[in-house]
């Protein structure tokens, strides 16, 4: 479905990704883990079209993404809930969702999609007319994900899903992610600081370090691997 092959990505003159490759299959949840500054968000931005890879290619169902502007990428069926939510704070919750349904095919199905998003996040229906800027962190993340879902993506990118959220809010959002993945066969690429949570949600995992992919595999296996435990989960290697 999504095929990233050997991309190098730069922030101005500074190289952030080296020869990164990744595959996401239909209906899979893939988690991207790694420490701060490893390049996870950069990879997300390259897929969403806000950064251009210098070499390599990103192909989604046969369509080259790496030369398309961001709004065209949304049309192909990829949408991102960006880091920091990036809502439209002075617009109402309903209007934020409506802007999410901007691309043509989403516009046609807007009412049904809206009903579905309201069903997934009932709070967004209850507070429909409220300004997005007045929401709590957890509600903002729900709205950011809801807005992305409004474009009817087949691949949803979520950057820093639980950053700044209470554990309860993070838990309820992970529940929703499981549900939409199962009910709609929606593929999800997830960047999440809580490695335990990230890998327990996902089917597959990728580990990044210093701009490179250094490990990958089924999420359950990664969760048990000694390296992951040691580096990210705070376990010490058993004494020999």
């Amino acid at each position: 479905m999504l095929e990233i092959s050997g991309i190098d990505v730069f922030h101005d003159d500074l190289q952030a990704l080296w020869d990164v490759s990744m595959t996401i299959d239909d209906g899979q949840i893939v988690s991207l883990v790694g420490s701060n500054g490893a390049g996870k968000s950069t990879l997300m931005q390259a897929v969403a079209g806000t950064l251009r890879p210098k070499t390599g290619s990103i192909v989604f169902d046969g369509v080259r993404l790496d030369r398309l502007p961001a709004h065209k990428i949304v049309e192909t069926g990829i949408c991102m809930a960006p880091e920091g939510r990036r809502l439209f704070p002075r617009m109402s919750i309903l209007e934020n969702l409506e802007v999410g349904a901007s691309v043509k095919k989403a516009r046609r199905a807007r009412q049904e999609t809206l009903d579905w998003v309201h069903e997934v996040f009932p709070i967004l229906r209850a507070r429909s007319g409220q300004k997005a800027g007045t929401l709590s962190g957890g509600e903002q993340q729900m709205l950011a994900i809801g807005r992305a879902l409004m474009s009817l993506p087949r691949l949803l990118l979520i950057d820093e899903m639980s950053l700044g959220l209470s554990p309860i809010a993070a838990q309820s959002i992970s529940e929703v992610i499981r549900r939409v993945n199962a009910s709609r066969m929606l593929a999800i690429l997830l960047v999440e600081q809580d490695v335990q949570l990230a890998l327990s949600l996902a089917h597959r995992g990728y580990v990044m370090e210093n701009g490179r992919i250094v490990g990958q595999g089924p999420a359950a296996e990664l969760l048990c691997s000694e390296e992951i435990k040691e580096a990210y989960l705070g376990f010490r290697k058993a004494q020999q």
Partner: protein
Amino acid sequence: MNAVIQTLLIGIVVGALYSLVALGFGLIMGVMRFVNIAHGSFIIIGGYIAYWLFTLWGIDPYLSIPAVMLCMFGMGLLLYKLALAPLLKYPRAEMRIDKSLLITFGVTWILDNAVTLVWTPDTRSVITSYSGSTFDILGARLGFVGLTGLVIAILVAIALHLLLRKTYFGKHVRAATEDSGAASLSGVNVQRTYLISCGIAAALAGVAGVVIVSSYSIAPSGGLNWLLTAMVVIVLAGEGNIGHILPAGLILGVLQSMSTLVVSPAYQQPISLIVFILVLMFRPNGLFAGRG
């Protein structure tokens, strides 16, 4: 008492025109963070087009508004394509503001000189059969053209408000205003939204030009004065608050007009500039800041 009502009425009429003058300027500034110095010249060109339609074909200035808007819309698209779009490569708003200021200042020079070539430096106005007619309201007199200008300004402000609130395009404009990056990640074609906003802003300048040419007069160099007024109104309204432009314009008009009861009418321009500075000093986010 009569004099007070008379001055108040004049203030309202003038203020409505001020807000009409400011709407297009405020739209470009709010949405794209571009300062369009050429806005004043656009107003003047809109006025000259109406003048031409009237003198060459005898078309009533108010009926010529759609045609003027269409021409100016096209000019707005050209301005965006030729002068403003290249500036989008500067990601930070401050860089866009000063670069656009310089570029559109150059555009103003070109336009003003082109206007002088085409229409000569003479002052022009459109005088119709009804230009001199007046109404009596509460014992005060109000000119027909003044009243029409007031109605047009209010209609245009309402139309723009509805466009921004109710249509898909309007929601795209507002989303791009708040966070253009997030808008394009949501599938909004931000460049196209900018392009059309620019056309609409120029069309609004055209409407202002028609009202000015039929109630006052226009000359090729007159644009900068109207631009100054637009800037004062925008500062009063608060940047990015397009909904506040009409009340801000009315307040400015009434203030200026009422001042003539106390000081000489010659001080009207200084008074608006004093208001400009006071607002910048004490309410830098506009008169209505903090009310959401």
